[in-house]
């Protein structure tokens, strides 16, 4: 009798310790990334790093502005290309598609969210890059922000579409019925009642997509060209900016970490800190939007 009470209590403490492991890991990650990065911030200086336009580790020039811009530009590109399709797809699946189509497409989208990013990257290298190269602009190599944006858009499409679809489905039936009973068409009901009611869920889906886009590493390295120069338009047409090769924060870390030492290595951790902070801001705003949504219902 007594032993099983002791076991009961012992188990509880063991479980408590495992429950704390996640917060411990978060703490350790923050600690290690910041600890290793602090040297760079001290020797190079936060301002020089964040706003420095030149990344030349051999000459001790460690500006990551070009990478920050690269990450932001490629994310914007992916959102512009991917979000309309993802939201349209979500509305289509939740409201318009016949059940047979839903039953096939939904698991397919779930599947695509799980395909390794290197596969998307490979597809980008083999199929997309040669296509982009056909755009007749001098110096266009095919590798660059445009190819990377397209690859990223395809990658975040399943994530955004499935979360947005959940948000649309979560809109109470009573709203839908109330609107239809007033003589609104199905489309009017979607536009005037369902989408406004699902808005925060859809915004949260987009923000999560942004988080995924900012964090993507390998597929970006494979198609973006990895140039460390500041992205700028290639001709008078400002849109040619997207034909430029660039590098993301994530790519900067992955490409150089294996051979970097000293201050150079530290600057890569500092790059990680910048990425970490960016992602945290994105995630916290997503959580904020989600919570607001729960408060409404």
């Amino acid at each position: 009798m007594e032993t099983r009470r002791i076991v009961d209590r012992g188990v509880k403490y063991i479980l408590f310790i495992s429950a704390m492991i996640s917060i411990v890991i978060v703490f350790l990650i923050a600690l290690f990334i910041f600890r290793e990065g602090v040297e760079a911030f001290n020797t190079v200086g936060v301002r020089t790093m964040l706003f420095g336009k030149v990344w030349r580790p051999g000459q001790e020039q460690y500006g990551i502005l070009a990478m920050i811009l690269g990450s932001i530009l490629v994310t914007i590109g992916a959102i512009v290309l991917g979000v309309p399709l993802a939201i349209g797809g979500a509305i289509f699946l939740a409201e318009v598609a016949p059940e047979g189509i839903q039953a096939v497409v939904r698991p397919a989208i779930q599947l695509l969210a799980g395909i390794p990013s290197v596969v998307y990257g490979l597809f980008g290298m083999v199929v997309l890059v040669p296509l982009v190269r056909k755009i007749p602009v001098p110096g266009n190599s095919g590798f660059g922000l445009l190819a990377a944006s397209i690859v990223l858009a395809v990658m975040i499409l399943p994530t955004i579409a499935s979360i947005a679809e959940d948000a649309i489905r979560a809109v109470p039936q009573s709203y839908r019925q109330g609107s239809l009973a007033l003589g609104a068409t199905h489309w009017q009901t979607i536009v005037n009642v369902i989408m406004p009611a699902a808005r925060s869920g859809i915004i949260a889906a987009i923000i999560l997509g942004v988080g995924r886009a900012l964090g993507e590493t390998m597929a970006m390295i494979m198609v973006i060209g990895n140039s460390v120069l500041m992205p700028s338009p290639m001709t008078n047409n400002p849109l040619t900016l997207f034909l430029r090769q660039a590098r993301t924060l994530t790519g900067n870390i992955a490409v150089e970490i294996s051979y970097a030492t000293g201050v150079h290595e530290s600057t890569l951790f500092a790059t990680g800190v910048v990425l970490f902070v960016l992602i945290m801001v994105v995630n916290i705003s997503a959580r904020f939007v989600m919570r607001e949504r729960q408060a409404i219902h």
Partner: protein
Amino acid sequence: MMSDNKTIEIQHENILLQQKKSNLSLRHATQSAFFTILWIGGIITVLILLAVTGYVIFQGFKAIDLQFLITPPRGGLSGEGGISTTIGTTLYLVLLTIAIATPLGVGAAIFLVEYASDNNISSRFLKGMIGFSHFGVETLAGIPSIIFGLFGYALFVSTMKFGFSLLSASLAGACLVLPVIIRTTEEALLAVPRSYREGSLALGATKWQTIRKVVLPASLPGIITGIILSVGRVVSETAVFYVTLGGSYRMPKSIMSSGRTMALHLYYLAMDTRAFEKAMGTGAILILSIILINLLINFLSRRLTAGLRGVQ
């Protein structure tokens, strides 16, 4: 007064007339137009996704034969050979990662679900810790994988001197999949009806006996789903292992050996040697593994819901 009412009435009638004139066919036409756009959008979305996977599988199968699966890569910059050792490394790494992450994740979820709602936990300290833990899980789920890689590189590879090895990679990988296991296990535990627990406790079983004999068996399919999801994560992950696993194409001899998973191999083939056909072959195998994993998950979750419905 009388005439005032009258004008209001007339005005009202006019408004109603205005409303009655509403152009029904225009509204239907608008709906048809937008629904057509949605259909086209839906079809385009599906086509894009099909094109990517279809292309890789189709191209990949040109490179795949038995030889491809059972011979090791020849290494160097040749891109020659098969992928046998990378399959081995992937399995090895999956097993290690799951072995590390599962007990921790399942344990954490049990505590968060079964003990957090406990009335005994009145202490503010414990409540605060549970809040922290939930915050930890949510945060981990949002951290990009390259950060896990950096962390693994700094802690396991450098500080703890495990070097580029399966051990370092699986520890970093375990951090990556931990939130997946915790979340799915939590969901599975929450789906177990309260009456099960009460029935067992009423018979005089302790809390742990109740969990072990009643709650865990009932939630097992859900927990397994979480584990398989994590397997999928490890199989498709590249960034974390790129900076912790080293990349040797040889078969690992121990947990301290370096290695490369299929996904990593694909990356090296495409980037370093431009051996695109072999890369496509590897990609096709990867996609098939993911399809297999998804089928397993669908099968299990159907069994889970069927099982719970059956007993209720």
